[in-house]
């Protein structure tokens, strides 16, 4: 046997990565709230654990295994399906569960990153890089994610709810496979912070609601002329929830929504984007094409009913 090398840059990097996993891993827990293998979670602040909503399949009888191997009961403080986050409170003493240290530097393309999990008793890791960083985006369930972070990193079974950690062991966000069909998505710390605050205060994340379902439709030139529409595409209303704000405001199935508060809409996401929590209780002006003519409807934005799961 030849003598192994002890030093070298590669060995030093390897030791650093293992130390980062060890440091951050103390805040990574296993959440027992589904049949198969446990999911991962992060101690976000003292006594508070954040996990991925889609992995928490029951509201009661939830256990959390800490890094020291002890399992303590937890209660569900709330869930936000739109960002796939759920918040749990540890019911027992939490000395064995230190909170994560957030990364202070912005995420950069090319940065080495570790995804951690605890789908059982041991912490697990995977290494990759940040492959793209973008601006704010909206999930298909309508949640706002502050920053788009794409990873070149393999995410394995049980990783959802675990943290994205930099080489210094600092946490940049929470990973989940529940927001995109093919790839893992990181919910950045800023978004987690905001959702945790709302869930702890209210048990849910409030969002504005009209009660309509729409789909894009190309506007024929004649209709554009008669209704005074500048855009080539509008949104045809395909459903109106009974007793919803839209119903009470007079929106009918078949109306073509052209603009919301004078801003043209061409995608259902445009309507979602205009319905933040701050709009609840305030009137919105909907310009619709009905019977070939433009009409203005005033609808008081309501609060979206709680999604069960």
């Amino acid at each position: 046997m030849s003598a192994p090398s002890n030093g070298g840059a590669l060995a030093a990097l390897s030791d650093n990565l293992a130390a980062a996993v060890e440091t951050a891993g103390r805040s990574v827990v296993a959440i027992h709230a589904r049949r198969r293998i446990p999911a991962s979670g992060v101690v976000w602040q003292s006594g508070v654990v954040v996990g991925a909503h889609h992995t928490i399949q029951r509201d009661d009888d939830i256990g959390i295994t800490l890094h020291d191997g002890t399992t303590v009961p937890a209660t569900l403080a709330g869930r936000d399906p739109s960002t796939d986050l759920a918040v749990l409170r540890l019911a027992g003493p939490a000395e064995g569960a230190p909170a994560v240290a957030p990364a202070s530097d912005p995420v950069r393309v090319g940065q080495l990153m570790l995804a951690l999990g605890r789908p059982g008793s041991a912490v697990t890791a995977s290494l990759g890089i940040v492959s793209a960083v973008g601006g704010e985006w909206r999930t298909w369930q309508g949640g706002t994610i502050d920053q788009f972070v794409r990873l070149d990193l393999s995410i394995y079974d049980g990783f959802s709810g675990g943290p994205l950690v930099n080489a210094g062991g600092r946490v940049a966000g929470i990973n989940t496979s529940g927001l995109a069909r093919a790839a893992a998505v990181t919910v950045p710390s800023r978004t987690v912070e905001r959702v945790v605050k709302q869930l702890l205060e209210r048990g849910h994340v409030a969002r504005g609601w009209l009660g309509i379902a729409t789909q894009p439709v190309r506007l024929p030139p004649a209709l554009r002329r008669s209704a005074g529409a500048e855009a080539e595409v509008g949104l045809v209303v395909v459903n109106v929830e009974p007793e919803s704000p839209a119903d009470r405001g007079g929106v009918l199935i078949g109306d073509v929504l052209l603009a919301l508060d004078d801003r043209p809409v061409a995608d259902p996401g445009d309507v979602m984007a205009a319905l933040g929590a701050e709009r609840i209780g305030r009137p919105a002006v909907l310009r619709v094409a009905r019977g070939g003519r433009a009409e203005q409807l005033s609808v008081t934005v309501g609060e979206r009913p709680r999604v069960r799961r």
Partner: protein
Amino acid sequence: MSAAELAADLAEITERLRRVTVQVRAGARGLGGGVVWLRHGLVITNAHVAAQPRLEVVLPDGRSLPGRLVARDPRRDLAAVALPTGDISAAPRVDARGLRAGELLVALGHPLGVANAASLGVVHRAANGMSGPAGWLQAAIRLAPGNSGGPIADARGRVAGISAMIVGGLGIAVPSHVVEQFVRESGVGERGGARAA
């Protein structure tokens, strides 16, 4: 540490690993890897690679030798192959139970027939004391058929395990301490036991 140092280190470790990695051919049944475990000519590979008693082993220097299957344990997915040669470099080893999640790993093998291809990853979960695959080394690393039997080494170039299977995208390796047990229990560690007849 600079990126250039990292790259040079990685190249050196991969080269050292190449010098203890062999190709194991079982007739037309395909190609796997193997690790020179003992310098008197004992190669360790997977049981599922060494599927017949007579094997062709291609050494790191390109020589092709006839190998004789001297021990095989499908439960541990390990096989020992004796070579008719006296003195070749054996791989340095590390106990995979002592590795930590996040440590860098380098795998060498012949994925899909490409000889001596390297891949880089990290320890997903270290080996533990449990018997059977549930206790083996789990590596977050890209492997493919043909990596089987080849080494997975730590950042210091020490072999931590023998690549055995891919489960849920993870590379699963028989940890070095299980290989040591296998060598001891099957009695192939003795020079005479491994000598080709």
